[in-house]
C-alpha cells in the first residue's frame, strides 16, 4: 500500500499521475470513500483528508478520521437493539439515525420457534448488508452463503468503549493498522473483544477490572496515537496494574 502525502480539500481534482498504476490492465479503478467521479474523466474529492492509493487493487480513497460513521455494505458493526418488531429487531448503529433492521431469523440456527430473545439495549455484533441509502439499513448475523454465524451474534456481558472511527479501522486491518496492544495483553490476560466499524469496542475480560484495563488501554492508544514502542510500554504498565 502506497501512502502519498497528498492532502486533499473538497473539490480538489486528482491528477491522473496521482492515481494508482495497475499492473493488471483489465482491473477497473475503484474509488473508495471521499472520492467521486464526474464524467467524463474528472475525479474529485468530497472530504478533507489524505489521498491513499493501492496499485495492487487499483483503488484510491481518502483517509480521514472524523465525523459520524456512515454504514457501508460488508462492514462489521456493533449495533444496539432498541425495540423488537414483528419480524425484526430495530437497532441503532449510531445515535439519532434511522433504525437499522435486523431480522429475527438472521441468526445462526434461528427458526420461528428458536429465535433469540433480545431485550432493548442489548448489543449485537453484525454485518451491514445494505447501507440504506435509499431505504433503512439492513443488518445480518449470518453469512448468507453458509448460514454460519462466523463470530457474529448477540454480545453478552462485557463493556462497551467508544473509540475513533480510524482506530476501529486500524484494529480491523490487522498488521497494517499497527496495533500490537491486544496481542501483547493476550499473552498474560484472557479476554474477548469485538470491534465495530461504527467506533465501538466491546471487551469482556471475565472481571470488571480486566475489562476496564483492556478497554482503557485501547482508548489510550487511540487518543495518544501510540506507536509500537509506546504500546509495549503500555502493555507492561497495564499488566503490572492487574
Amino acid at each position, binding site marked *: 500500500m502506497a501512502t502519498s502525502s497528498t492532502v486533499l480539500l473538497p*473539490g480538489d481534482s486528482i491528477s491522473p499521475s496521482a492515481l494508482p498504476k495497475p499492473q493488471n490492465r483489465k482491473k477497473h479503478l475503484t474509488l473508495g470513500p471521499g472520492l467521486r467521479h464526474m464524467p467524463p474523466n474528472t475525479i474529485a474529492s468530497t472530504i478533507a483528508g489524505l489521498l491513499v492509493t493501492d496499485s495492487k487493487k487499483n483503488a484510491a480513497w481518502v483517509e480521514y478520521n472524523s465525523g459520524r460513521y456512515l454504514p457501508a455494505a460488508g462492514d462489521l458493526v456493533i449495533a444496539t437493539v432498541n425495540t423488537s418488531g414483528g419480524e425484526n429487531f430495530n437497532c441503532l448503529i449510531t445515535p439519532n439515525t434511522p433504525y437499522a433492521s435486523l431480522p429475527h431469523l438472521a441468526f445462526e440456527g434461528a427458526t420461528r420457534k428458536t429465535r433469540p430473545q433480545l431485550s432493548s439495549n442489548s448489543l449485537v455484533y453484525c454485518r451491514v448488508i445494505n447501507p440504506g441509502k435509499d431505504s433503512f439499513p439492513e443488518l445480518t448475523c449470518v453469512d448468507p452463503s453458509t448460514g454460519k454465524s462466523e463470530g457474529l451474534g448477540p454480545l453478552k456481558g462485557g463493556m462497551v468503549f467508544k473509540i475513533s472511527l480510524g482506530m476501529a479501522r486500524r484494529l480491523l486491518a490487522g498488521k497494517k493498522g499497527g496495533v500490537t496492544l491486544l496481542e501483547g495483553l493476550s499473552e498474560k490476560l484472557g479476554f474477548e473483544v469485538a470491534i465495530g466499524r461504527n467506533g465501538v469496542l466491546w471487551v469482556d475480560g471475565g472481571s470488571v477490572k480486566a475489562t476496564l484495563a483492556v478497554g482503557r488501554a485501547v482508548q489510550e492508544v487511540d487518543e495518544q496515537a501510540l*506507536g509500537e514502542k509506546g504500546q509495549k510500554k503500555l502493555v507492561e504498565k497495564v499488566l503490572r496494574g492487574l
Partner: protein
Amino acid sequence: MAPEAHLSHLHRADGSATYTHNGYSVIGAVNGPIEVQRRDEMPEEATLEIHVRPAAGIGSPKERHLETLLHNTLRSIILTRSIPRTLVQITLQVRSLPEGGTVTDVNTSLALLPHLLQTALLTLLSASIPLSTTLTSVLVAIPASKSSKPIAPLLAPTADDLLRARPIRSTHVFAFSGNRKLLLNESHGVFTYEEWDEACEMAEEVCCKDKGGVGLNEGVEVDGSQVNLDEWLRSVVKRKVEVEQRWRIAP
C-alpha cells in the same frame, strides 16, 4: 493577521470548530447526517438546519436573516444528494465580538457574516460531510472620501480600522468557492459599479488561490498582513491530517 482555527474540539458533536479573527470568535458544531423529522424530510436530498446564536441574548430577526443567507450558501456546496433523507444540523455560537464593534457605521450582521461562513465551513470539514468544493469569505469596506479622490477599500478590516476610517460608505461581503466562483455577495450602503468591481476583485485575490503566472490584479495593493484564505485553509486541513495520521510515524 491570520485567522485562528481549532478543529474537532467538542467531543459530543460530529464535527466542531472554533474560529477567531479580528476580535470575532465563533464556535461551530455539526451533527449529521442524522435522522430528519418527517415534515422536513426530502426524498432525494439532505435537509440543512442552521442555528445562529448571538453573543448575548436570544436570537432576533437579524440572526434569522443570517441563517437564511448561510443556508442558501452552504446548500450549494454540500453534496446533499449523496446523503438523502438525512439532516445536517449546524449550530454557530458567537462567542465574542470586537470591542467597539457597534459604534462603527457598519451593519453589524454584515460584519459578522464572513466569520460565520468560515466557521461553518471548518465545522463541515471537521464532520467530514461530503462537499462539492470549499468556501472562503471576506468583508470589504469602502470609506467615504472627503475629496474627489477615491479611497482604497479596506480588506477584512478590524474594528479599529473601521473606526479610524469613518464614515464608511459601503460594506460588502463576498464568498468564493474553491474554483473561484462567487457564491454570495451582500452589499450595504451607497456605491458605484466601479467600486463594487474593485471590491470584488480585491476579495477574489485574497479568497482564492493564485491562478499561477502574472495575474491582472498585480497592481492592487493588498495589505501586507492579509493572508490568502485558500492557502490558510489548506494549512488548517494539513494540520488536521497530521494529527490524524501521527500514529503512522509514532515510535
